[in-house]
């Protein structure tokens, strides 16, 4: 875990995001009806979700490790990863709403993708409520670890599987092709994939900062 104190990967993340901010505006994009220039939102809206996935995934990994090891630090990593993931969740949801206003006509059109995203958001809010509801530390850690392990696949189902089974306005769902199939050019990929990696690193960085703060708080509380 020494790498969380090192700087090189944080600098890499910042450079990648700066690159995507500049290239994301200046590289050419396909001219599509309705979307127009808002297609560039792909570089900023989708990476929020990718970043969220990474930190939620790390959280599940450490929840499983906690159940195996019983080490308190593993539980602390899990909770701080979820806390960070929720920030990116909100950013993804709100940026998606703004985009929807101009691509679909309304901020919230009760689209299956939007509705299941809202449900999955509540799923993770329930995780935080659950944690606050249990006072005894080991019990809290164990129960919330189990909850977290179940919440993650349910979130995947809600965000990626259910909307695909019905009609949705969101690309990649229902009868709609994903962006990748027809609209994505290689020039766009040259921005999009670095954006994924860059924002994932930023999210991981924030999670490690929160974890380190939590470690100090934990030490002070136990004194």
């Amino acid at each position, binding site marked *: 875990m020494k790498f969380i104190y090192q700087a090189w990967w944080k600098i890499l993340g910042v450079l990648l995001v700066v690159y995507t*901010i500049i290239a994301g505006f200046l590289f050419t994009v396909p001219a599509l009806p309705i979307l127009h220039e808002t297609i560039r939102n792909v570089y900023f809206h989708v990476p929020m979700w990718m970043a969220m996935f990474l930190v939620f995934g790390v959280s599940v990994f450490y929840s499983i490790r906690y159940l195996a090891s019983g080490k308190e630090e593993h539980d602390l990593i899990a909770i701080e990863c979820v806390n960070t993931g929720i920030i990116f969740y909100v950013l993804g949801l709100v940026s998606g709403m703004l985009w929807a206003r101009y691509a679909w006509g309304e901020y919230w059109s009760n689209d299956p993708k939007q509705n299941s995203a809202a449900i999955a958001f509540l799923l993770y809010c329930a995780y935080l409520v659950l944690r606050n509801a249990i006072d005894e530390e080991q019990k809290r850690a164990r129960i919330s670890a189990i909850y977290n392990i179940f919440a993650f696949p349910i979130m995947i189902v809600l965000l990626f599987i259910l909307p695909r089974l019905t009609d949705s306005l969101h690309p990649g769902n229902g009868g709609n092709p994903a962006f990748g199939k027809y609209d994505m050019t290689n020039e766009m990929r040259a921005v999009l994939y670095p954006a994924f990696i860059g924002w994932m690193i930023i999210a991981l960085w924030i999670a490690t900062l929160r974890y380190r703060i939590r470690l100090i708080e934990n030490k002070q509380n136990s004194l």
Partner: protein
Amino acid sequence: MIKKLVCLVIFLTGYVSAFAQDVEMADTMRSSGKIYVVVGTIAIVFIGLAIYLFTIDRRLTKLEKHND
């Protein structure tokens, strides 16, 4: 004081733009809808936030060393 400053800024920007109307040179930042200015703004905002994150990181490192 503030009113005077605002007047000065308005005067200066008006003065500069009055002279900038006809002759255009090295105009990347002002060309085609001025999107480059927006790119610059967002880049500055993000770099600023990143530097802020780095300072938090450094403060935390100090705190950690102090705590051990």
